[in-house]
């Protein structure tokens, strides 16, 4: 049931993925790889199928065709028990937080631990509190209900819940949308700190240019029903494809691009269009 995959360093390895709704093909022969320990942003225009891809990768929907390995396990041939154990290794932060509204923040965080963990009941509250504090929430928010929280706190509470079982892969759907710039930067920093100290692999869908240019190790760009390119924002900006040029050198990205160019000049190195995993 657990057929070993040649490259176990890949947390996500999707090959030839097809997603189709009726006659509308969202992804066509899509390849996508994510290495252990990387923080990756998944970007693309609205309607390019980011959320569908995310849902496929976290096993919320079955791809129409193609191969998907998670942690080296082929999920098409895996039985339900294996899939369930894989799910426990993935923490998900949904776009709106998706906190259970009838539970307090602490109860939200403890839910997955009580369901799937085997942890000393006397220490449970302490453990839940540690996740809440880890996510950067004040201690007194533990007893609050989701409706009593601000937007930024909802995101942090959802992050605390996503971290509950010490996942190896953290999947974030627009984690900084709806946050003020200061809050968003703090959230980016938090993700980075956590990914370093917990050894997390992070995949985040985002439109936040700050995150894309400064907050992540690499960027996967979704267009033409495929992952068009994977690389750093600077690398993707240096490419010729019109979609990439528009996204990374367009009006909104101009300042970031200019800053990257200046920095490259100061360093005396050319902006190396050395791109990892090109699939033009």
């Amino acid at each position, binding site marked *: 049931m657990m057929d070993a995959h040649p490259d176990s360093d890949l947390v996500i390895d999707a090959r030839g993925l097809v997603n189709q709704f009726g006659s509308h093909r969202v992804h066509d022969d899509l390849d996508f790889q994510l290495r252990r320990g990387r923080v990756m942003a998944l970007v693309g225009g609205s309607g390019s199928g980011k959320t569908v891809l995310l849902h496929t990768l976290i096993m919320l929907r079955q791809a129409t065709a193609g191969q998907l390995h998670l942690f080296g396990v082929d999920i098409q041939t895996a039985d339900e028990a294996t899939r369930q154990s894989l799910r426990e290794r993935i923490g998900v932060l949904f776009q709106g937080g998706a906190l259970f*509204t*009838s539970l*307090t923040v602490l109860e939200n965080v403890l839910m997955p*631990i009580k369901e*799937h*963990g*085997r*942890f*000393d009941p*006397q*220490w449970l*509250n*302490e*453990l839940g*509190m*540690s*996740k809440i*504090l*880890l996510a950067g929430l004040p*201690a*007194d928010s*533990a*007893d609050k*209900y*989701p*409706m009593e929280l601000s937007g930024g706190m909802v995101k942090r509470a959802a992050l605390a819940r996503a*971290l*509950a*079982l*010490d996942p190896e892969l953290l999947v974030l759907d627009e984690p900084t949308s709806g946050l003020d710039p200061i809050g968003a930067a703090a959230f980016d920093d938090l993700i980075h*700190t956590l990914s*370093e*100290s*917990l*050894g997390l692999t992070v995949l985040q869908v985002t439109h936040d240019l700050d995150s894309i240019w400064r907050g992540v190790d690499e960027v996967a760009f979704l267009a033409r029903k495929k992952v068009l390119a994977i690389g750093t924002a600077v690398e993707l900006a240096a490419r010729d494809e019109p979609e990439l040029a528009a996204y990374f050198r367009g009006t909104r990205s101009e300042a970031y691009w200019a800053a990257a160019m200046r920095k490259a000049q100061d360093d005396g190195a050319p902006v190396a269009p050395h791109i990892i995993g090109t699939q033009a």
Partner: protein
Amino acid sequence: MTSAMHASRLDHAPPQADWSSDPEFAVLTLTGTWTVHSLQHVPILHVPTTQTIRILSQISAFDSAAAMVLARWLRQWRAAGITVDVSQMPERERTLLELLDARLVDTVPERTRRTSLLAVIGESAVRQWDEARQFLGFLGELIWRGVPLVLTFWRIRWSVVIAEVEAAGVRALGIVGLLSFMIGMVMAYQGGATLSNYGANILIVNLVGIITLREMGPLLAAIIVAGRTGSSYTAQLGTMRITEEIDALRALGVPPFEILVFPKVIALVVTLPLLSLFADLMGLLGGAVVANYGYGVSFAVYFDRIPDVITVTTLWLGLIKAPVFAIVIALIGCMQGLRVRGSASEVGRATTVSVVQAIFMVIVIDAVFSVLYNLMGY
């Protein structure tokens, strides 16, 4: 310590913490698997009397749950004035421990819950009083805003009203008809069993006719509508509150009362009397079937006798209650919906409250009508 049996089933060694002493410091050696899946019994440690503790780790798996436990211990020891040396731990474990240690706070807040009986009674009394006041307020708003709307009836949103009439009335015909028919049958059976002993089978018509028209028809229709339509009003408005649709209407300058509440009230005031009339007819029909096949009162005799025992007044005494029921059901349904705050479970709770209150009020009002009719000599 973890039971060995369970650990072997999970295929990992139990978490263990063992002291060994050294002249200068106590050494705590950690072995086994330390994760959220294996720490089902956190080891209980006695605190050594030495000035320094050194932690050695031979742990095979270590996650932030384990780091949390260690960080707690560290805090306790430091509070007791003991120096803790973690320098011998692997770097990854140390980083994790430091991260947790830096973030933990010393007090875990406890949710304060008042559970004394007196507090519960008091709270519920205050809540009931609040609800009663709100209902009166809502009734006042209906009159305050409703009367001008009725006077300028062309401004009423008739398309909404008609859609509500269809949902609350036309679609309820089947269930109201079937239940009334069966209640009519039941009454005829129960009455017939006694009346036939006296050879007074023909009086089944009086029995079924009067009870159905004065009580059963309107009451049954109202209870079904309260369960079917009142609950849907609450669920709809409650969900609209959570999704901020009500706020959006206000922001767009469309008063929610005008577009949501008032059409529903009008629709029920129109629908419920008609449904009651239909329930009356079906109840009489149910009685007729039993009278014909069970007690030898033929259809011809049954329907021939109806005008003699039932006057138009009897019909009106029943039907006049229907609009009152309608207003109460619609108002409670809408009020409970608009009161919803926040969570999905609140919508469920509000819907339950709405149905219970509406049926309760319908029966109370019915009783009040009976007393009034009695005083008036009907």
